[in-house]
């Protein structure tokens, strides 16, 4: 059963140095507030996993929280580079960053295998690409029925998955809607699950395309209003595209970045549970 906790307490309980931490949300529902709390608590040596590392991963990487990144596409959508991600890979700043990269389909299927309790997933892809040679969690497998050669990707079971959602009820069931990306798979693949939500409500209203994660697959729910900002939460907020554009200049320079983190993250209080 999910415990309803404050965000700081939940991160303290569930995220430890050296853990493999998946944080998902595909453009929508990115758990930014939780990422900021990880930075405030100074976690180190994390293996961070995310299909599309964006601003919050740029911040975690730039603050030296990660030793390894497992990912599919690391950029600032529609804007350009993630400069902290690039600086870590190109120059090892502030600490060297090991990478394991996949296609989105490959990484998504790693979660599917993890959520299914299977050792691997199969897909038609990777052949002919350099990813095959560079990524240990991709191999080939022969179909036992047709003999077709297919790509196999190893199951991914993070120590902890963190996602953001619209609502939880008072027993810790979680409701999300809109673009849910790979949130369900990443949650069900993980050993521990933290969900930040916009609000805790008495009862869920029926929603088109709504996905409910039952309380008994979740460890902690923390209320974090606007917890996806500058990403967005359908029904609560819009994506702040200007903030994504502004991040380019902030993140380009190490000092500007460090100062920004100090002002906007280190000195801002963690969210509290109601």
């Amino acid at each position, binding site marked *: 059963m999910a415990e309803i906790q404050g965000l700081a307490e939940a991160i303290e309980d569930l995220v430890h140095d050296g853990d493999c931490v998946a944080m998902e949300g595909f453009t929508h529902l990115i758990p930014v507030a939780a990422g900021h709390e990880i930075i405030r608590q100074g976690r180190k040596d994390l293996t961070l996993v995310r299909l599309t590392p964006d601003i919050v991963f740029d911040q975690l990487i730039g603050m030296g929280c990660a030793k390894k990144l497992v990912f599919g596409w690391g950029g600032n959508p529609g804007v350009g580079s993630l400069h902290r991600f690039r600086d870590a890979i*190109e120059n090892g700043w502030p600490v060297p960053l090991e990478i394991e990269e996949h296609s989105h389909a490959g990484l998504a299927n790693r979660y599917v295998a993890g959520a299914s309790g299977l050792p691997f997933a199969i897909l038609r892809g990777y052949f002919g690409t350099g990813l095959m040679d560079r990524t240990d969690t991709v191999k080939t497998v022969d179909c036992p029925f047709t003999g077709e050669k297919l790509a196999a990707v190893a199951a991914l079971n993070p120590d902890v998955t963190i996602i953001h959602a619209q609502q939880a009820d008072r027993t810790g069931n979680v409701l999300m809607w809109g673009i849910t990306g790979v949130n369900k798979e990443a949650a069900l693949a993980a050993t521990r699950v933290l969900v930040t939500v916009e609000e805790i409500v008495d009862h869920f209203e029926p929603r088109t395309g709504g996905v409910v994660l039952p309380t008994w697959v979740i460890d902690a729910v923390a209320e974090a209003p606007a917890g996806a900002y500058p990403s967005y939460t359908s029904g609560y907020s819009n994506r702040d595209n200007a903030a994504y554009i502004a991040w380019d200049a902030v993140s380009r320079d190490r000092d500007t970045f460090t100062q920004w983190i100090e002002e906007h993250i280190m000195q801002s209080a963690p969210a509290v549970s109601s």
Partner: protein
Amino acid sequence: MTAVSTGAEQSAGYDPDDMMIVAAARALRGRRVCFVGIGLPSTAANLARATHTPDLVLVYESGTIGAKPTRLPLSIGDGELAETADSVVTVPEIFNYWVQAGRIEVGFLSAAQMDRYANLNSTTIGDYDRPSVRLPGAGGAPEIAASCREVIVLIRQSQRSFVEHLDFRTSVGFGDGPGDRARWGYRGAGPTLVITDLGLLRPDPETCELTMTDLHPGVDVDQVRAATPWDLATAEDLKTTEPPSAEELTRLRALQATQNR
């Protein structure tokens, strides 16, 4: 992406990006289902919807199928894409059920580098372990390249982007030539059209090597050869692209004015 000039000699008032977008939109005429990335592809697909193919189904990687944005999105997951979509599905589903199963007719790709067989690099410039430029990486490109029924590549043509050897092969065109796609089990036809700022290239049916088939207005053969590091094949009946029409440009400007910022 502003027009280069309003002078009389360039009264057409469009720039190379505009020509690429218009050419890409034209290539979607009469198509049913298109997988769209952000930037030029999204602009082109929405221009096609706004002009000749209003029923074109736009599929964005965020899982939005049949999105009908009124503003050009900044990201593939902008809220309006989900709000206007016929269906919103998960990421595993979009790739497994829709892309891999061959339900997407046309997919757009772009890249930092392309070789003569339309293989693409969007991963690193320089050595993989010590890159001089770390690019975003694969994203959805490898499966789009493998399994969309056709692929259209949008890339500027220069000695920098057209290369003899890719620094990294992120997604495949025709590999090292005929037979490779079949050997890999890929069911899509691969890149059937490459649109550059200088013209159009198509794979040779025998050799799979890209052949320059069309030049944009005002571009000559010497120019495209100079922008290509290999001995570029050119079609015997090299055509000239129709310049963007007044209507295409008007619609394009109207779309660009909606860019979600």
